[in-house]
């Protein structure tokens, strides 16, 4: 990856337009606004922030980091307490799918949003919107799965809410979970933390969850053995931070994200834009399961844009990359971890892919919805 790119007038023109303040021209919410891609970013930055914006929300990370200073005391005890706080709603259809269900997803999704802040996830809330007529048997199944997922992730559901709406007012079952975790180490992780020379680590195969949901809907009459990758990432993050401080320091880990809707492509674009760097990834290093690749080929989907529910992307100093990958591979949820690229200086704010075929192309954020209601 030695050759450099030539920025051109064309490129600059597009970049200027790309960084314009979002201007929401739509008069109605469309499914594209829920895609995790550009339309959703426009809605959040152009509408939500206008009304609800504040310095913490404006950072637009997957979680908020809240700092409290302790009263009194000296030395160490002056260090502020840092809490991570995150929320997510789950509307996936179908609610049961190979590898998991809406309950397991609702626990792991919020746990992961907390984990990538470097926090130890502790407590969850759970809100349920039930459609009239929803079988209690199914509710029990979902709850059992939430119980098991919470146990695995080491969190407790400590508060909750239940609402029932008329038939048609919701689709079977929607779940919202919020969570808090405590950031015990002085780690500082942020989408704006990527630096030139850093390595990009991916914890495993791409696209398993999105492809599973697509096939589970049965519209395509495909039969495969693909399963959702829904998993809690807390232990993997702890292993990584532990390894980083063992071989160098916690500062060597710059950014962690879990690439859900919009896939790895969208996550890397967010990091490239927030950090003002270029992220170069190599197609031949990106692990994709054979079945997922086949299904995506048939459906015309790109694994880079397909949702994951148990993977993370890490931006780390080059010096610790190999040690981190080796340690991640010892964790059940990081067995296929590898370095997939690196951070370079120019052109800023973009993700570039070296294709296995020998060419180069830009990997932009997803524009419309690739597939609605996957989580």
């Amino acid at each position, binding site marked *: 990856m030695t050759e450099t*790119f*030539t*920025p*051109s*007038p*064309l*490129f600059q*023109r*597009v970049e*200027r*337009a*790309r960084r314009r303040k979002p201007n929401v*021209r*739509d*008069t*109605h*919410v*469309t*499914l*594209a606004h829920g895609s995790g891609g*550009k*339309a959703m970013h*426009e809605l959040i930055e152009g509408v939500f922030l206008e009304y609800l914006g504040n310095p913490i929300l404006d950072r637009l990370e997957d979680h908020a980091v809240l700092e409290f200073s302790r009263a009194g005391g000296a030395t160490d005890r002056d260090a502020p307490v840092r809490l991570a706080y995150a929320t997510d709603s789950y509307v996936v259809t179908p609610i049961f799918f190979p590898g998991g269900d809406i309950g397991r997803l609702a626990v792991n999704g919020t746990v992961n949003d907390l984990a990538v802040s470097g926090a130890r996830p502790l407590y969850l809330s759970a809100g349920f919107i039930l459609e009239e007529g929803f079988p209690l048997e199914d509710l029990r199944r979902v709850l059992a799965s939430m119980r098991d997922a919470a146990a695995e992730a080491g969190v407790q559901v400590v508060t909750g809410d239940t609402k029932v709406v008329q038939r048609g007012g919701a689709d079977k079952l929607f779940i919202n979970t919020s969570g808090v975790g405590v950031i015990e180490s002085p780690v500082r992780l942020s989408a704006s933390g990527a630096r030139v020379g850093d390595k990009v680590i991916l914890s495993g195969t791409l696209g398993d969850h999105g492809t599973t949901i697509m096939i589970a809907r049965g*519209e*395509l009459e495909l039969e495969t053995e693909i399963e959702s990758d829904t998993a809690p990432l807390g232990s993997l993050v702890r292993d990584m931070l532990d390894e980083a401080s063992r071989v160098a320091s916690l500062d060597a880990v710059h950014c962690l994200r879990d690439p859900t809707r919009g896939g790895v492509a969208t996550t890397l674009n967010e990091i490239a834009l927030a950090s003002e760097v270029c992220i170069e990834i190599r197609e031949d290093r990106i692990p994709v399961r*054979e079945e997922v*690749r*086949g299904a995506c*080929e048939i459906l015309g989907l790109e694994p880079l844009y397909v949702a994951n529910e148990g993977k993370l992307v890490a931006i780390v100093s080059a010096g610790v990359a190999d040690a981190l990958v080796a340690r991640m591979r010892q964790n059940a949820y990081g067995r296929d971890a590898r370095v997939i690229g690196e951070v370079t200086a120019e*052109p800023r704010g*973009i993700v*570039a892919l070296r*294709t*296995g*075929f*020998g*060419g*180069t*192309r*830009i990997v*932009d954020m997803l*524009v*419309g919805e690739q597939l609605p209601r996957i989580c």
Partner: protein
Amino acid sequence: MKFIDEYRSGDTARKLAGEIARLATRPLKIMEVCGGHTHTIFKYGIEDLLPDSVTMIHGPGCPVCVIPLGRVDDAISIALQSGVVFTTFGDMMRVPGSKTNLLDAKARGADVRMVYSPLDALKIAKKNPDRQIVFLALGFETTSPSTALTVLQAAKDGVENFSVFCNHIMIVPALKALLDSPDLQLDGFVGPGHVSTVIGTRPYDFVVREYGKPVVVSGFEPLDVLQSVYMVVKQTVEGRVEVENQYARCVSRGGNLKALEALSEVFEPRDYFEWRGLGSIAHSGMRLKQKYARFDAERRFDVPGLRIADPKACQCGEILKGVKKPWECKVFGTACTPETPIGSCMVSSEGACAAYYNYGRLSKIAGRAAQT
């Protein structure tokens, strides 16, 4: 994936690209007609591998891109009528009409559903006998046979609540119109692959006979496209002008007779059909024959049927003809982006502008733009 990876080998690509560079000693402009090829070229960065002497021109073979505004408006007006379930392929959802698109119509309450095949639309019709199910059919001879077979199936099963809003187009009249355009300068064609699985390679003979340009019908994997470029270059260097078939594993000279039979049973050419950017082209569109008129949404529903001029700022026409490169259009990448497309070339991932925008901003092409 076995049987596919063989067509994506980087090593073979480099060897082939070396051969092309050796042969192409003078500047050559080659048009890939089909949007699928455009997509492959950008997705795999094929232009990075080509020598400076070979320029690819991205042709009009993206059916979504050439749908005129007025037809999209007609589609939306049908979709908004009460009792209608409007079905279409996913990439039609965001295609702009004069004011809005189908995704918006859906948000405003129209029942618009994505399907993967017209047969899925027919299934919806059978399941919902109290609704009118309309399928927006579009595409070249690649997709028209499946529409034809669905209409035949509907007729056989006596389905009364199913109709087709037909926007099927034909490749040969489009090629003719392109070749007749005075500002076109081309040395040869990478011919469409999927279309040719249906129509065969024989219909392209006129390109060789009347216009003296080589045609190589190509498959869609990156090595297919690269090899086809090589074959076109080789023809020009050796002074040959022929129709060659690189995609012989799927395409025959005579085409798919069963599919052609279904097409001629169900469809007839329209006198004129409008193409976005290219204007009206004689005998280029298809409509349902009188015999199947009951399945024709244009006859079943009131549609405005207005012809709406392309937006002034938009230079899709020049881009589709290869006269201009996407970045030479004033609104490219600024007012016209994949999120808010003005021109249709920006809508579908097979459109030349969207391909440049999404994939090509880095490549050698961008470097070339810097020089011009």
